[in-house]
């Protein structure tokens, strides 16, 4: 039995989770929410995390019913992400690892999403669409490492949605993207100037703009995923990252999959959104093949790439048996949800 605790705080969520051999024992989280019209800044985010982290750590242990001695390994997000919050969390992880006398494992945040997605959904060898506030990538596993087949070269889709939400002053609680999704009915223009003009002239409502933005941007994501699938000959899609919570995106992806006879895997907000258990899970994978991080190497990095250096080495992705667990949403080619 291997028990791993994972610390995640690369953006505005601080989460600590405990995983034991593929079972999530606890996964508490806090989100730093700013007023409408404002984004979150690194130093304030780090301050928020500092204030919450020890409480969340206590919760993680209590909910799992474990003591520090029961932990085998301490995993933490090495990157990518915002500098100050990453440092805050890494500091605590390093400290407890030394206090408890446990090995450390520095995890790539993106890999954390993917590994948790695979664990929860049981997807075998999927094309992964990783969409969040900070990342928009299409990833597939090939020749023993994760490879980015496509990515945004300007901003991430979640960032795009968040910035738009700020422009039209949508609430950040629980997240801007969630509130965009709640508003709908449609039309087609998205530029900031056009938005203000149209809203003030009553040509369209905020709901119209949200709908249009979603429809257009999500069509792009689905199309790119489909192209990747056609290129790789893949019959499975896994959506991970905060934007993956969006039901309309899941619905659109599901329609595309059905037309191709492919399967869609998606998780719910517990695991789409940044959380500690995903770090623990990726850490578990690394730990059991002997990968640990020396204290001297436990620095954080804001720009940790998904491939090639950060891959979980020698993990035979298609061979592993993962049973779909709680929180799995399998859409299409299946009865029910």
């Amino acid at each position: 039995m291997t028990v791993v605790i994972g610390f995640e705080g690369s953006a505005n969520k601080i989460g600590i989770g405990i995983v034991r051999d593929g079972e999530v024992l606890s996964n508490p989280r806090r989100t730093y929410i700013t007023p409408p019209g404002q984004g979150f800044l690194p130093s304030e985010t780090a301050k928020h995390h500092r204030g919450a982290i020890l409480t969340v750590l206590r919760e993680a242990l209590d909910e799992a019913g474990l003591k520090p001695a029961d932990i085998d390994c301490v995993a933490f997000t090495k990157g990518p992400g915002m500098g100050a919050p990453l440092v805050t969390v890494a500091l605590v992880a390093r400290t407890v690892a030394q206090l408890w006398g446990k090995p450390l494992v520095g995890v790539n945040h993106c890999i954390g999403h993917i590994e948790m997605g695979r664990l929860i959904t049981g997807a075998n060898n999927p094309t992964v669409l990783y969409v969040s506030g900070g990342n928009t990538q299409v990833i597939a596993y090939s020749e023993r490492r994760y490879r980015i087949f496509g990515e945004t070269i300007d901003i991430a889709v979640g960032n795009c949605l968040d910035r738009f939400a700020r422009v039209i002053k949508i609430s950040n609680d629980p997240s801007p993207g969630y509130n965009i999704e709640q508003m709908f009915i449609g039309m087609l223009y998205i530029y900031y100037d056009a938005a203000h003009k149209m809203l003030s002239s009553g040509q369209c409502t905020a709901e119209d703009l949200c709908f249009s933005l979603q429809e257009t941007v999500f069509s792009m994501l689905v199309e790119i995923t489909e192209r990747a699938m056609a290129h790789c000959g893949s019959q499975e899609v896994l959506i991970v990252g905060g934007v993956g919570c969006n039901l309309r995106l899941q619905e659109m992806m599901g329609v595309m999959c059905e037309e191709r006879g492919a399967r869609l895997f998606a998780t719910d907000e517990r695991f789409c959104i940044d959380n500690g258990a995903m770090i623990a899970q990726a850490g578990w994978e690394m730990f059991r093949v002997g990968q640990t991080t020396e204290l001297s190497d436990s620095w954080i990095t804001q720009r940790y790439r998904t491939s090639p250096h950060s891959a979980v080495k020698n993990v035979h992705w298609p061979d592993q048996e993962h049973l779909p667990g709680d929180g799995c949403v399998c859409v299409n080619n299946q009865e029910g949800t």
Partner: protein
Amino acid sequence: MAHMEPVNNKPAVSQFLQQAVLIKQGAEARVYRGRFLGKSAIIKERFQKLYRHPALDEKLTRRRTAQEVRSILRCRKAGIDAPVIYFVDYTTNCIFLEEIIDSVTVREHIASAQASGQSVEALYGLADTIGKILAKMHDEDVVHGDLTTSNILLVKGKEGRDGKLVLIDFGLSYISALPEDKGVDMYVLEKAFLSTHPNTEALFERLLKSYTASSKKAPAVIKKLDEVRLRGRKRSMVG
């Protein structure tokens, strides 16, 4: 082909397609082989995408069809080899084009050359030609949008020598003078090249050299290519 009247309100093209042979279904279009006006033709049908909002779908599909046709015609006018367009049907978003027979994709050509143990230098001539053609295309301000070795055909020449190169699949193409867009075009090719054909960095370098030598506008494009290469790595990845 016998004269066809639309039956039951179905467009004649749809009926025609029923008799054609489906050779490929890509992510965006179905590709058929058939006979059109006595010639062997490829028919590319952009079908409806149900996951998209209908208004968006109609607009995108029509635009892509038009863009593809325009780009091919523009290339041909400039003397770049691309399939001849026979007919375009905007009601079904179908393009009827010339079938390029007796050809292999550059992808297949490189793969078999490597498999048979040929040195990379043997392919330098090919790299030079590709670089030249792409330079010409970009000088016409045509951005291909999907440059991969699967989208360049090598027609068998006389006596087994290499014949001409034909560019195909302009489905994502558009007209642009911006070095940024051309730089991204080359970036896509670089990524596709290096991920499909391992250990061919020298070959691609040769291609870029030929490209640079063949166009006055090339330096600006290469500069943008360098910038774009760094962008993926230096982008802040938060959340």
